């Protein structure tokens, strides 16, 4: 562990809608109470699922940690990171009303700013993006001047594939401000999380996030987003890692035979992904032996892609084993310091508000 390490995935839990009300305008503060909308929880993270919150980090009633003090004690101070990036998972993607989605995203982002960023100078945050493209662009423009916001964040299973042209104003706004697009595990529940229909069990749904990431990545690459926005970086957060090499092999192999369908791609998809896409290392999804992990890292064919993250408070490891077993020691400075700093321009620039 180095003192310059950057933890690229921390989750500040919003205790409930009441927490957000002070950060809403009169209309939304009034109407959410009047309508009785007190909680909004996505089944992507069932509160009592063991993976949703590590057992030793749960509150007295089993709840998720939701204060800076808890984050400091459980992760930030404990592992001595120089900086940590907050990725709020409050499900602003669920409302079908564009306006409600945007009002909630604004409130979450302002809550993060006031109750987290202002209370610990090590903290940075994602701009949680609402569903609507215009609203998402507006939220980027509203918060970009505060350089503690280091990226915009969406879910891997949203309303439409992320590469489609409808989304390009968001990519343009992010590129303009030097903000990566973070794609986090989770669904807006507009579609079944598998392409063959609704799964019955949580374990199916949890596993299906990797399909969502694959579809999002294929869409971003083949639609030509990285040709249109060569400065844009994408960070896959909580995506798992081990599925990527096989997926890239298939995408690139198939592309060779249908290149004329997407002629704007001037080089193989795997190369484009290696240049533009980064991923956090928790979960890692690999067996716990060094040889297998090394082979997997060879298959990535890049040591630039991985970003250290604890995924606090989700449960991926016991005690202080923040790095997957078998991970080569020599790569740690790279994934903990160099790669995050290369990915996040605003971390290099200092980033105090």
């Amino acid at each position, binding site marked *: 562990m180095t003192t310059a390490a950057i933890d690229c995935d921390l989750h500040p839990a919003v205790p409930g809608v009441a927490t957000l009300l002070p950060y809403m305008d009169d209309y939304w503060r009034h109407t959410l109470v009047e309508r009785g909308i007190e909680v909004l929880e996505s089944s992507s993270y069932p509160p009592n699922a063991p993976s949703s919150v590590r057992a030793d980090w749960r509150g007295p009633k089993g709840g998720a940690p939701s204060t800076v003090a808890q984050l400091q004690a459980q992760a930030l101070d404990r592992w001595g990171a120089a900086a940590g990036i907050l990725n709020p998972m409050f499900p602003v993607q669920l409302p079908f009303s564009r306006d409600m989605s945007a009002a909630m995203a604004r409130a979450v982002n302002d809550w993060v700013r006031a109750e987290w960023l202002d209370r610990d100078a090590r903290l940075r945050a994602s701009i949680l993006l609402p569903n609507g493209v215009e609203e998402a662009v507006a939220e980027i423009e509203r918060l970009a001047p505060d350089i503690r916001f280091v990226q915009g964040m969406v879910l891997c299973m949203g309303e439409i594939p992320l590469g489609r*042209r409808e989304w390009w104003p968001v990519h343009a706004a992010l590129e303009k401000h030097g903000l990566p697009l973070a794609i986090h595990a989770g669904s807006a529940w507009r579609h079944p999380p598998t392409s063959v229909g609704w799964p019955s069990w949580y374990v199916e749904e949890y596993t299906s996030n990797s399909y969502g990431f694959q579809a999002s990545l294929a869409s971003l690459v083949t*639609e*030509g*987003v990285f*040709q*249109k926005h060569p400065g844009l970086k994408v960070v896959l957060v909580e995506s798992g890692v081990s599925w990527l090499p096989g997926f890239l092999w298939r995408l690139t192999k198939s*592309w*060779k*035979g*249908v*290149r*004329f369908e997407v*002629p*704007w791609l001037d080089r*193989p998809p795997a190369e484009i992904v290696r240049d533009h896409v980064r991923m956090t290392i928790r979960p890692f999804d690999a067996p716990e032996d060094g040889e297998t992990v090394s082979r997997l890292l060879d298959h990535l064919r890049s040591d630039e892609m991985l970003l250290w993250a604890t995924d606090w408070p989700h449960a991926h490891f016991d005690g202080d084993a923040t790095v997957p077993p078998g991970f080569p020691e020599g790569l740690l400075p790279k994934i903990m310091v160099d790669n995050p700093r290369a990915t996040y321009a605003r971390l290099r620039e200092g980033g105090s508000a």
Partner: protein
Amino acid sequence: MARHVVAPAAEIPPGGRKVVEAAGKRIVVFNLEGEFFALLDRCPHQGGALSGGILCGLTQSEEPGTYRFSRSGEFIRCPWHQWEFDIRTGKSWFDPRRTKVRQFPVAVEEGAALVEGPYQAETFPVRVEDSYVVLEA
């Protein structure tokens, strides 16, 4: 390399192709608007016969959503995995440096020149008044 008379030129009209044997190799000869090109009839990927593929043009793009089509009929796609090869160079489009098919020099010569020279046409008579495809392999 020896020179081989492989076909009467009239047998490969513009847009046409013909598989010939020369020096023990299967070679496919293309006629692009009167210019002849010869490639080994074997895809460098897994050995598919290029001669069985479809002719296509070159699709390029300035930016996503724009299509620039040119050089119609100047590319051959391997029938097995549809990789595109430039008939004029033998190079694949997606990886021209490393993935390419062997090319052979080919020309059209008059029968009058051929009957006087040191050429051998093994399978058909060469007539003075016709022209022939001559391949170096």
